[in-house]
């Protein structure tokens, strides 16, 4: 089984549009995994019917029982996250700041502090419109375990792929280079880096490539909106040669991207004749 991750560093370069179209041409061979759990949008195109949904618990938050609290302030003085609020001589946990380390619980002599495991999201296994399976998730507001939820989505996708004898898992990743991206890269065989020819896109491409290279993951690159700045497109191509990154496709600026999203379609459905050569070419190179 081969796991292929679509990432970009910079947001808004077309990751999800391309992932949706790839799932259209490869529907018989892939299980899709939406690992942009912060801002998951793939389901808006794939319109999945959830077959199985599961709460996802991860991490803890401290709770102070005011009946037992002796107001000694020990919790307040050890917390490194400023997550304990002092109100007169009462103490409360600031929910969004608590990282669940439990230090406060260890120093509370009155045993007034409990750690409660948190439901941080929902994970779904679904039948997507094009005939493939989609594993996707919803992260709760302000939850700080997105890396773990990404790992869970990928684990489920692997299981579903095995059960259904699919050879590929295609992961729609998140922007950035932090914990959800690192989590989506772990175990991947190939990373598709979607970029655009802007100085920002170029900077971000370099950083996300460096991260992928640390995991020794082979990379290919799609240059989207390639004609917006031919000069920077040329600079990107130089970098691809230098870093030994495969050029998968150059796609011109085209408002079919927002047009397809607005209609809830993938590019292939909007204009198959125009988009098939691009999408098929990418799929043949990465599969």
């Amino acid at each position, binding site marked *: 089984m081969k796991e292929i991750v679509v990432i970009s560093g910079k947001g808004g370069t077309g990751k999800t549009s391309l992932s949706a179209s790839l799932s259209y041409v490869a529907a018989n061979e892939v299980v899709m995994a939406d690992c942009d759990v912060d*801002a998951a949008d793939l389901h808006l195109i794939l319109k999945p019917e959830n077959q199985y949904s599961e709460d996802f618990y991860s991490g803890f938050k401290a709770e102070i029982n005011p009946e037992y609290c002796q107001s000694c302030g020990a919790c307040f003085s050890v917390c490194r996250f400023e997550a304990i609020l002092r109100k007169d001589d009462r103490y409360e946990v600031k929910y969004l700041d608590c990282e669940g380390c439990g230090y406060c619980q260890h120093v509370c002599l009155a045993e007034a502090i409990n750690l409660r495991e948190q439901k941080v999201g929902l994970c779904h296994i679904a039948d997507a419109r094009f005939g493939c399976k989609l594993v996707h998730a919803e992260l709760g507001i302000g939850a700080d375990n997105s890396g773990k939820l990404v790992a869970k989505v990928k684990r489920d996708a692997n299981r579903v792929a095995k059960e259904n004898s699919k050879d590929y898992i295609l992961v729609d990743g998140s922007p*950035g280079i932090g914990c959800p991206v690192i989590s989506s890269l772990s175990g991947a065989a190939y990373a598709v880096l979607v970029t655009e020819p*802007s100085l920002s896109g170029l900077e971000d491409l370099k*950083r996300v490539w460096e991260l992928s290279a640390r995991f020794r993951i082979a990379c290919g690159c799609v240059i989207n*909106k390639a004609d917006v700045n031919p000069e920077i497109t040329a600079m990107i191509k130089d970098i691809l040669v230098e870093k030994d990154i495969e050029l998968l496709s150059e796609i011109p600026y085209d408002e079919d991207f927002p047009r397809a*999203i*607005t209609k809830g379609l993938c590019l292939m459905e909007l204009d198959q004749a125009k988009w098939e050569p691009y999408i098929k070419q990418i799929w043949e190179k990465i599969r």
Partner: protein
Amino acid sequence: MRIAIASGKGGTGKTTLAVNLALYAAQTSNALLMDLDVEEPNSSLFVKGALISETPAYRMAPVWDKPACLLCGECASICMFNAILKLGDMIMVLPELCHACHACSELCPVGALPMQQRPLGIMRLFRKDALLFLESKLEIGVEQATPLIKQSLDYVNNELPATDYQFIDCPPGTSCSMIHATKTADYVILVTEPTPFGLHDLRLAVETMRQLDKPIGVVVNRIGIGNEDVFTYCREEGIEVIGTIINSREFAELYSRAELMFTYNEVFRHTLDEILRRIRGIR
């Protein structure tokens, strides 16, 4: 007055709005811009300021002092993040998983896990005319962005002079790093685009800001693509649309070269004036 520029969806124009707003405001007031999109900071490409100082940022993680250790295993059982493992007669620290709570280090009966600095990233301070600009960049391979975001805010609060405006270019999404970048703001501008993706992620961002009890305004970028649903949503939710930016190839090209839109486009200057006027009204 601290204004955070955020969004649920990536690539909607946070950086474009943040740099233009900050440099435009700096023509008439003292202003500070912070780039707290620490995983992929891009504002510096647009600001092109003169470097004043560089401050390395560190995070703390324990290191094992083998001779001092009694191998009681207390540290491994305390750590909620599986960052410490006891393997036979060895204690193994996995610094990537460490949240720097200090519990293992301070609760160790013999002090065998002293905390040590590890690289987290770098904070660079620039000046461009009346604008102070702080860029915070995360070291590649570091998983947690929030410690750098918190340190950057502390640095601004403690080390830099007060300014009329402080603008923050935030990371995308709605998880912990976005929350920490917005939580000290007096006002949050959510930038979106008028497509179903933009709307879906805007809803998440609005819910997040409501939990933080932040006053918000929405800027809709790339008007002309998509549909009216974002405006309908804002109207129904009573959220003010404080500005719109037209979809144009010209803007895309200016952005690609990291050039400022307000210097070329009068309509956009009016948009910025209007946004600044609304912000002043919040005070």
